[in-house]
């Protein structure tokens, strides 16, 4: 009889059932879509971070950049000095070139021994140290200075000066040297002018033996081979595919890094569709330290925890043992992801969540109010039921049952609409751009000078520019720009939660409505009979 009565009531009072169901459906659909999209955004962020920090990096350890010393220039001096006989001189022009390898601007290096401290900690399953450097080349063409002479410089002045007073050089020049007053020649423009070029690229020194953790653990080999343990101490380099293509370099070519010639043994590419890896060039750590003069220094430690539950404990242990270090987890780094992906993330988490809560509360309220009003309309009916022997409990159960079924109907429709919405999102498959800087500047590369992006506030499209390899003073921390396709996953869990929410809503409305029904006194309910 419970089922029959329930069914008849829901069908008989269709309007109420439909309104409650629609309210619940909207709320449940929204919950599913928001949850799914935010999971997709989180996945996308993880992908971006992986392309920079590598798979398996749970924690990065770095040191905050020290502010420039008073009175000093910011960063290492950018002076390039050439001696008088530097460069090669041909044909009236002198070509000079020099390169320098130094710590990437905005980074602070610290002792490599800290890596041993971290590796020894409990909960750490792997750790690797890297040194982020920038190689700056300076080359240009100068006129041949040996050809440009001051008057009387090369010949001997045949006249003797017997003037005892101030010398006004009254002698005549009868030397046989060349005429100093000839127009300047040579140089870059052929008329005594000069031109210079400044270029830079990023270099990452890493330990070839530790390839399970760190930036190279998530790249694909596109040509040649990666760095192997045997490469320690050798002048072998691996290039980022985008950099190699832009500079027309291939496996087997040579490359000048800080004055040393390196051989390209392989090329790697990022897993993102249009991405760069964390650095333009990768070389063995010991060579990086030696050439840059940063002996026994590293700039970042990538740490892998033995399980995700250990991450917080490992972070605390590192902070305790290395008080000067900046220790960042994936969550901290997530805030370093800029670009339209981060806009989407912000939008989904704040607006999406709030909207879901509000709509859910509204749906619950609609269910409660309509159930109460339904009970009021059925005063005589419930009074009669009490008169024929129905207990309060039975009547409350009937009302609650009707309410739960109404909400479940709404929940079922909501799940269907929600899944449809997710399908639409995935069909649409928006491509979001994200950039995460590999600058170990405490996880705040968005603010570091010259770093890419600007906190994602620029809306749609490419909010993060590729850092140019050239540009004086630019090209600091290597940044990875990734295009990520937003994919909204649906887990069975969210569907279960959605249905549970509908049941809770129904029970709440049923309990309140049932309470109202139980308070009806049969005598009063029947008094309306007259």
């Amino acid at each position, binding site marked *: *009889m419970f089922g*029959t*009565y329930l069914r*008849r*009531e829901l*069908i*008989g009072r269709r309007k109420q059932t439909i309104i409650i169901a629609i309210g619940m459906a909207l709320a449940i659909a929204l919950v599913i879509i928001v949850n799914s999209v935010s999971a997709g955004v989180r996945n996308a962020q993880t992908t971006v971070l992986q392309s920079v920090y590598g798979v398996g990096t749970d924690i990065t350890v770095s040191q905050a950049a020290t502010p420039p010393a008073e009175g000093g220039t910011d960063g290492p001096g950018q002076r390039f000095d050439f001696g008088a006989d530097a460069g090669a001189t041909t044909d009236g022009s002198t070509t000079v070139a020099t390169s320098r390898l130094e710590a990437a601007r905005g980074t602070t290096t610290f002792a490599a021994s800290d890596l041993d401290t971290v590796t020894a900690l409990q909960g750490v399953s792997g750790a690797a140290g890297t040194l982020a450097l920038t190689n700056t080349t300076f080359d240009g063409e100068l006129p041949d200075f040996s050809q440009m002479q001051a008057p009387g410089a090369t010949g001997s002045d045949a006249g003797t000066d017997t003037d005892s007073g101030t010398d006004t050089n009254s002698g005549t020049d009868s030397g046989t040297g060349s005429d100093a007053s000839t127009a300047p020649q040579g140089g870059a423009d052929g008329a005594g002018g000069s031109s210079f070029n400044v270029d830079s690229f990023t270099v990452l020194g890493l330990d070839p033996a530790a390839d399970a953790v760190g930036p190279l653990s998530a790249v694909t080999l596109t040509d040649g081979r990666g760095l192997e343990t045997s490469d320690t101490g050798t002048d072998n380099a691996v290039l980022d595919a985008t950099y190699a293509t832009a500079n027309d370099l291939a496996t087997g070519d040579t490359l000048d890094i800080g004055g040393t010639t390196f051989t390209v043994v392989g090329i790697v590419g990022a897993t993102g569709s249009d991405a760069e890896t964390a650095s333009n060039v990768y070389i063995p750590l010991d060579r990086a330290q030696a050439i840059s003069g940063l002996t026994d220094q590293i700039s970042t430690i990538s740490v892998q925890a033995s399980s995700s539950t250990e991450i917080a404990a490992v972070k605390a242990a590192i902070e305790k043992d290395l008080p000067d270090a900046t220790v960042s987890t994936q969550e901290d780094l997530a805030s370093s992801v800029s670009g339209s992906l981060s806009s989407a993330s912000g939008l989904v988490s704040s607006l999406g969540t709030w909207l879901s809560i509000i709509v859910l509360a509204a749906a619950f309220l609609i269910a409660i109010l309509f159930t109460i009003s339904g009970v009021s309309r059925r005063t*005589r*009916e419930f009074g*009669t*039921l*009490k*008169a*024929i*022997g*129905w*207990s*309060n409990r*039975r009547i409350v159960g009937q009302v609650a049952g009707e309410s739960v079924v109404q909400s479940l109907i709404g929940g079922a429709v909501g799940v269907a609409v929600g899944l449809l919405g997710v399908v639409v999102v995935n069909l649409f498959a928006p491509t979001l751009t994200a950039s995460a800087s590999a600058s170990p500047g405490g996880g705040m590369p968005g603010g570091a000078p010259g770093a890419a992006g600007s906190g994602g506030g620029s809306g749609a499209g490419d909010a993060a520019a590729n850092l140019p390899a050239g540009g004086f003073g630019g090209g600091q921390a290597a940044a990875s720009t990734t295009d990520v396709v937003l994919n909204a996953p649906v887990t069975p869990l969210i569907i279960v939660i959605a249905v549970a929410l509908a049941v809770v809503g129904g029970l709440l409305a049923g309990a309140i409505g049932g309470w109202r029904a139980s308070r009806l*006194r*049969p*005598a009063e309910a*029947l*008094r309306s*009979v*007259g």
Partner: protein
Amino acid sequence: MYTLTSLTKTYSQPKRTVTALNGVDLTIPDGQLVAIQGPTGGGKSTLLQMLGALDRPTSGSIALRGDDLSTLGEAKLATIRASEIGFVFQGFNLIPTLTALENVEMALVPAGVSAQERVHRATQALESVGLGERATHLPNELSGGQQQRVAIARALVKNPKVLLADEPTGNLDEQTRDEIMDLLEGLWRDQNLTVVIVTHDSAVAKRAERRLRIANGTISEVA
């Protein structure tokens, strides 16, 4: 069957207190057909609600076969209503979304009988009021008289000791009224019920064994 002792019921309204029943003493023996007449507002409906355990007295006692209804808890009262008392109302009070058969079944739900037995007994009850072929009709497909018959079937399907009727023919025309009264009388005799009918209609009251009159909360016998 019933013993009422100094039964008093007052209602507190915003402006005044209404005394519906004023120290009523009454005994109704088993198997009696009683009609209670009186002016509107005299206390008829209140008395019926007391007899039907639908409300509690303000003071005094009312005993149904030894159980003092004024002292029992709500759950126990519900059980008594479910098994001992059948109720028929002026407005029929059938559930509009259920068929005639299902309406009758509703009275057997608290008894916890199996669905099969419920249907069987409800069908029999409907047949005993002459509505066997209308089992699947909804109330709005039935005439007033037919609806009241369904209500009577519902009241009697659980084999109660008492049948209480509040103006059972109040909404019916004369001919139907007589038919319903014939039905009630027949059932009264067949099932040895104690029947209490509240009515303002003398034609109905005349058919009872015993006539009472209630006015201003006090009861008196009518010769």
